Structure formats: C-alpha cells, structure tokens
C-alpha cells in the first residue's frame, strides 16, 4: 500500500510571552492509502493543530511532512493553496459553506480554483451531490437545508476534485445522532471505494466506526490502534 502521509518528528510550538506551548510534540505518523483513521483526545490536546498541518493549512515549526511522497516544508503559500486544492478535501464541524451560493455552486467551488470550465464544474458538482443523496437539492442555499444535509454538501465539495485524502475536523460535532450516523455511513462508503479518510472526533461511538484510532494528549501521540 502506498504511503499518503508521513510525519517525521513534527513540532508545532506557540510562544506567548514567556510561556512556550508545544501544540504538537515530536509527532511521528504514517498513513497509507485507503486508511480510515480517527484522531481522538481531550480538548486542547492538539487534534485541530494536527489536522491543520496535515491539511496544509499550517506549517510545522520543525520536522518533516511528506504528502503523497513530497516534502511540503519548502512550499510557499500559493503552492500550499494549490496542494490543498488538488490533494485534500476538507469537511468542517460547522460545514463552512458559502451562505449566498447554492449547494451546486458551493460544491463546484474547488473546481473554480482548479481552473475547470463552468459547464464541467456544474456537471461534476451535480453528480457529486447526487452521490451524497442530494440530487433534489441542487439549487438550495445552505440555510434552506438541515445540518445533516449541509454536511453532505460539504462532503460532496470535499470529494469534487478527487483528492488523495479527506480531512474532517469533528464532522459530526454539530449533528444529532441520526445525522451523525448517516454522515459516518457516507465516510465508510467513501473509504470502501478506496478514499483515505482522516477525521478528528471526541465522540467514542464515532471513533469506534473507523479502522484506526489515534489518541493524543498534550500534543503527543499516546496510542495508535489499528482494528
């Protein structure tokens, strides 16, 4: 199996006044293609920091990060943006859809920055929405949809540019149990089709549904369990 993510001795350090905080403390990690992994741990343990670095939204203070075999340390902001666009699909706790755009336009957004022509964008966005069961909601604005539906739009958006990994930070955090399980079913289905999924959660029953559970505490990986 090909290696998608490789972290070598990653540190993320915040200095505030005279206190030094290691949000990530000597983290080593390998994720192979097709894995379905949950990062768990108490609040403030560094899960989001980890996701931001894995998602190329942030750079580590030190250490090496290989994404799809490429070291991204030397990338400038625009190269990071292009990497996010091409290789990473984000799903956020609070959906982060653009309120003024329709579901279809929201889903098509990454393709705008990938330089895909409009007709193709819209067609692909439509297919992606159909795939998550929202074929009837193409023209709805986010505020006309339920939380579960919004998160499905976000998942369709994350998938649209066919990324190497899906990164989801507490994707079920704002959803009721029923919607949470529906969303997890979609992730599972995606993973069954071969997508690599990394998600942060603090809900044990959600973590249970993945194939690998990573536990963090004070910026360190304290357990890594494959099932």
């Amino acid at each position: 199996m090909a290696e998608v993510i490789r972290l070598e001795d990653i540190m993320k350090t915040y200095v505030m006044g005279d206190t030094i905080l290691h949000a990530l403390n000597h983290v080593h990690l390998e994720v192979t293609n097709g894995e379905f992994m949950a990062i768990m741990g108490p609040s403030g343990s560094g899960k989001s920091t980890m996701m931001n670095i894995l998602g190329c939204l942030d750079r580590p203070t030190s250490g090496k990060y290989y994404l799809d075999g490429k070291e991204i340390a030397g990338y400038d902001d625009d190269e990071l943006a292009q990497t996010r666009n091409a290789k990473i699909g984000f799903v956020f706790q609070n959906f982060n859809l653009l309120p003024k755009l329709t579901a279809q336009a929201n889903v098509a957004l990454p393709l705008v920055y990938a330089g895909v022509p409009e007709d193709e964008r819209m067609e692909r966005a439509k297919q992606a929405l159909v795939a998550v069961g929202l074929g009837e909601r193409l023209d709805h604005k986010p505020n006309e949809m339920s939380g579960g539906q919004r998160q499905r739009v976000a998942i369709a958006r994350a998938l649209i540019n066919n990324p190497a990994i899906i990164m989801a930070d507490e994707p079920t955090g704002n959803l009721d149990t029923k919607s949470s399980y529906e969303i997890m079913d979609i992730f599972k289905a995606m993973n069954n089709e071969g997508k690599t999924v990394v998600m942060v959660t603090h809900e044990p029953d959600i973590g249970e549904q993945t194939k690998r559970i990573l536990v963090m505490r004070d910026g360190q990986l304290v357990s890594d369990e494959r099932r």
Partner: protein
Amino acid sequence: MFNESIKMALEGMVANKLRTFLTLLGIIIGVGAVIAMVSLGFGVKEQVKNNISRLGSNLLIVQSGGRTATGARIQAGSGARLTYDDAKAIEKSVDDALYVAPMVSKGYQVVVGNQNWTTNVQGAPPNILDIRDYTVEEGRNFNNRDMTSRTRVCVIGKTIVDNLFPEGDPVGKTMRIGKAPFTVIGVLGAKGQSAMGQDQDDVVFVPLTTAMNRLMGITYVNNITIQAKNENVVDSVQGEVEQILRERHRIKAGGDDDFTVRNLAALMDTMMETANTITMLLGCIAAISLLVGGIGIMNIMLVSVTERTREIGIRKALGATYHNILLQFLIEAMVIGVVGGVLGVLLGVASSYGISKFAGWNTVISVPTIIIAVVFSVGIGLFFGIYPARKAALLDPIDALRYE
C-alpha cells in the same frame, strides 16, 4: 476565474442593495459633477469663442483718457477729448480700416403719446449698423445726407417698438427723445440678448451730428469704433490709429497717451484664459468629490473584507491563492467604479442638459471628458480597492476560518 469574479462581485452588490447604492452614490455624484462642471466650463469657453466671431475679433475701440505708466486709467474728460475730426482723420489715413464709427451716447427718456421708456440713445454714422451687425427690417437707415443736414430721425430696436408702439407700425411716427421730437425712419431686426445678458434690441440710433448738435449739445465724441479689414491687420491698424491721434493731440515722444485703444481680440484672449481657469477650477472641485467617492469605496471594501473573513478562509482552504482573492476583491472595487462611472455619466449628461435648460447657461458635453471621468472612476475603484483586497488576500486561512 475572471468571469467568475465579475459574476460574484455583481451578485454581492445585488445582495447588499442599500450598501451598494450608497457606495455607488459617491462615485455617481463624483463622476456626474466632473462631467457637469467641465461641460459648463466648456460651455463658457464656447460662448466666449462665439462672441469673438460675432463681435468680430478685428474691432478696435478708442476711448478718451489714457493710461499712466502704471496702467491706471486717467479719468476721461480730464484731458483732451476725442472729436469727430479725429475720426475723420483716421478714416482718411488708415487704409486698412474698413469702418470708422465715432459714437456718442447718453441715457434719455423716450416718449410716444403717454408711453415712455428709458434707454441709451446712441449717435453714430450710418455704418454703425454694419459694424454692430444690425439689419433694417422696416423703413431705412439714416444716411450721409441725414448726417450733413442733422435731421431729427432715428432707427429703433424691437424692444423700443414693443414698449412705445404697442399698435406696431412705428415707421414715420414721431418719438420724443428727452424734449426733442424725432421721426422714426427704421426698425431693426431682432438680435436678442448679448452674451453679457444685454438686450440688444433696446437701442435707439440717431445720426452722430444730430446727436451732438441738436440733442446732447457737445463737441466731442465718447468713443470711436474701428473695424480693421481683417484680423491680421488689427495690430497695424491699432498702431496707425495711435500714431494719428498722438499727432493730432500733440503728444510729445515719451508722453502718456490721452486716449486708450482697446483691442477686442486681446480682450477675448483674456476672457478665454479666464474661462479655462474656471473650467479647471470647477473640474478640480468635482474631482475632489470623486476622490471622496473613492474613499467611500475603500471604506465599504474594508467592511466587506471584515464581514467576509470567513468566506475568505473557506475559499483559501479550498485552494484559492493570494492572487485569486486579490483579483476577486479588486474586481468588486472595479465593478463599483465601472457601474458608478456609467451611472455618473448619465447623471452628468442629464444635469448638463438641465443646467442649459433651466439656468440658461451654455454647456458643452465632450466625449473625452466622459471617457476620462469613467477611466478615472475605475482607476479610483482600483486604487482604493487595492488596500482592502490585499488585506483579504493576505489573511491567514486558519485565522480566517476561526473568525466568527
């Protein structure tokens, strides 16, 4: 990406109608003001230009009273007067002078029956009508015979007819000027208002000799109007006239003239310059309001960037680069500039017409002005959009996503 951004900008503007309108208003008023003001300035200029050609840029007017070395005018009447003989001498010796018209004028009450009217009565040789570009509509002009025999005849303008001869048909009737009875022998074609707002039909012309001897009782003339053959000889005619008058008035070399020759072309040049200055001034004041409009764009763009921090974070997370975001906001600022500019042109053109129609001022709308104003407003949109757009493009995606 470009089309996308324009579309998004327009959608954003439609979504925030009131805010868009207020922002646009600054630019609309700015552009409109520039166009209206510059049109007005050009109008003034054109009017001056028309006046030159109407009055003839080849006119010289000689008045008694000279100027000292410092340019102060010496009171007319304190020195030698201009006489009819001065005029005759000029007419005889200056070949390039087409007409020489010595003139006297004085305010009188003119009376017909129980109607009366106060006007300026002008005594002049018959050629005054040619010089002033009047036509005789009814009856005839007075002639040289009237001049030699000093007949009491007059030629009057439409305003006089309207006020003193309500029944019309004044030719042959008698009109009293002051106490002296005059026969109306001609009526002039209407000329309307002059550029200076004077009623050019409120005129009474009588033969110069009659006016001097039988009306006003004077032996001098007030001024001498000279028309040169063409514009090229105006200066040489002026020189000759000055020469003759200095000789006739026995002014020694180095002495100050006791008369002044006014050159209308020179006067018009000065007026043109003034008109240009006015245009510049009006344009600058209007441009300042356009600048204020630009600051309005910057203000609203800054608000927009703050409001849409989260949107920017989302776009960046999804792969928008610095340039993508910069372009998006710059285009928004430019769209405001373009839309404001176009609406401003409409406002400016409309108010130019309004000024012409209701204030009666001449305005000239020039296409270059419109183009410059629109380009300027787009430029202002760009200039004042750059700072907010850069601010947006430089946002850190994590901070932006976390923004509530």
